[in-house]
């Protein structure tokens, strides 16, 4: 802990990329966290004496860190926005992430259109009977604005329009999932990788969320996970990025984390 903090401090003082030659600092999206964590273990095992420091601080903070030079790699579950694009960051896509719209397994509704999902999250549809379900008030569970998942959901499903301001807001994927698992009337959204049998993922526009559907582009609510580096990755950072893109990580780690390998497409993007 202490040594990690010291190393990070050291990295900060050196203005970033010229810091100690035996470490790689990876910060950013909590969605990318499982991939980064397991990759770290494999990479450190293959390169004794090398340390990879991973911390999940959110996409925005990760991008901020890599721009400031306090991280080598900023992981993100969203594209660069606004001023972030002006700092010469290089984007390496590392996986696909689809967002599943989840309901309680007791809910008879199995699918919605993207328009219906949008209307529900904007508070224009408020009862399950309006979308073919029982006469039950819809309990909308939204994420906080710091969430990369919300950012993606807002962009893809709501076209950046306003969420219903009276909806419940919860600060984590785990909380959203456990509430939806408990409450028969609830609807929420989480990364497909975190869907468990205690919740039901809805088909959107008739397409059930599956790997094939995400890779083929048929499933409408999906996004790309990124590694951002300041300039083309070099040295150890380059090796780490290459390791994450290797079949070892892509076919094993990425899949086990519930994401879809970027190599699944065949063209390596």
């Amino acid at each position, binding site marked *: 802990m202490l040594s990690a903090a010291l190393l990070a401090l050291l990295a900060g003082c050196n203005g970033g990329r010229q810091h100690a030659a035996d470490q790689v600092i990876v910060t950013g999206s909590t969605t990318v966290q499982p991939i980064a964590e397991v990759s770290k273990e494999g990479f450190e095992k293959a390169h004794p004496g090398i340390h990879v420091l991973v911390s999940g601080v959110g996409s925005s903070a990760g991008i901020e860190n890599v721009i400031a030079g306090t991280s080598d790699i900023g992981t993100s579950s969203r594209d660069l926005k606004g001023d972030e694009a002006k700092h010469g960051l290089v984007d390496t896509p590392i996986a696909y992430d689809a967002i599943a719209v989840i309901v309680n397994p007791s809910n008879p509704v199995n699918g919605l259109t993207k328009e219906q999902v949008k209307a529900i999250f904007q508070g224009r549809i408020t009862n399950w009977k309006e979308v073919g379900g029982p006469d039950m*008030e819809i309990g909308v569970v939204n994420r906080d604005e710091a969430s990369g998942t919300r950012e993606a959901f807002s962009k893809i499903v709501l076209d950046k329009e306003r969420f219903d*301001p009276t909806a419940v*807001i919860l600060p984590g994927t785990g909380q959203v999932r456990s509430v939806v698992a408990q409450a028969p009337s609830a609807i929420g959204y989480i990364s497909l990788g975190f869907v468990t049998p205690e919740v039901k993922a809805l088909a959107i526009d008739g397409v059930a969320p599956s790997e094939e559907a995400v890779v083929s582009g048929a499933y409408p609510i999906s996004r790309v996970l990124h590694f951002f580096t300041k300039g083309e990755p070099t040295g150890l950072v380059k090796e780490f990025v290459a390791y994450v893109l290797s079949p070892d990580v892509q076919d094993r780690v990425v899949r086990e984390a519930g994401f879809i390998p970027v190599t699944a497409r065949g063209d390596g993007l």
Partner: protein
Amino acid sequence: MTPAEETATPRELKLMSRSTYVKEAALKNLFLLCATMAVAGVVLIFLFVGWRGWPVFSEVGLARFLGGAEWLPTAGAFGILPLLVGSLVVTLGALALGAPLAIGAAVFLSEIAPPRVRSFVRPAVELLAGVPSVVYGFFGLLVIRPLVADVTGGLGFGPLTAWLILAIMIVPTIATLTEDALGSVPEGIREASYAMGATTWQTIWRVLLPAAKIGIIDAVILGMGRAIGETMAVLMVVGNAPVFFRGIGKPISTLTSQIVMDMPYASGVHRTALFGLAIILFLISMGLVALVRALSRFREETR
């Protein structure tokens, strides 16, 4: 120092040896330093929060900040009125539920419980204070919330769930201080009451509670401070929708939970506005402490 030397300079008898003097002085300064650190901490935090939050009054405007009905940072609306109302609703409801509970527990511990029961109940009450608030939050989210949802409909996020959780959380604060207040009522007053033929209930209701009144009000105000400042547990059960109170089962947000929800991504005016919220919280706490101090002074004067 030999006895001969001591008699030679009698005045030095009153003085301590040099090493003792140094030790004493060092200790005095050490404690002074401790006290200074505590004060410096408060002052520095206040200055920092004030420095970061002050611009909100010019950038957003006092009226639009304090009186605005919409908290929509991404749209540039920074009205804290719904949050202020939310904090008040949550705090007052928690007090209404928690204060009688805590005062009842304190009366039981101080006046009724046999020593063996007391030696079991008192640590249990004190233990409540040691439970981390995130644990209260999880308990509220997974156990209380579904029960509330059955009663109010909806998902069970909102003031009622927050009241129930906070009511438990403020019990140790209010109960401990109320017990102290009851304990400081002179034994003679109790004896006089019983000697007049009063029952236990009459003694508690007509004699002890009025005698300890100011101390109990102190306790309730400090419990209020605890409730209004509580963040994590409230954040997990209140729903965090920055809108006006619409019912005990509908999501609202509070000053503290909004700061935590927004801080990770806030920048610019938004961040300044969050420090503005912190200033408001600071002023509320200061007001409560001032109230307690004024009451204590009143208590001492009337004694």
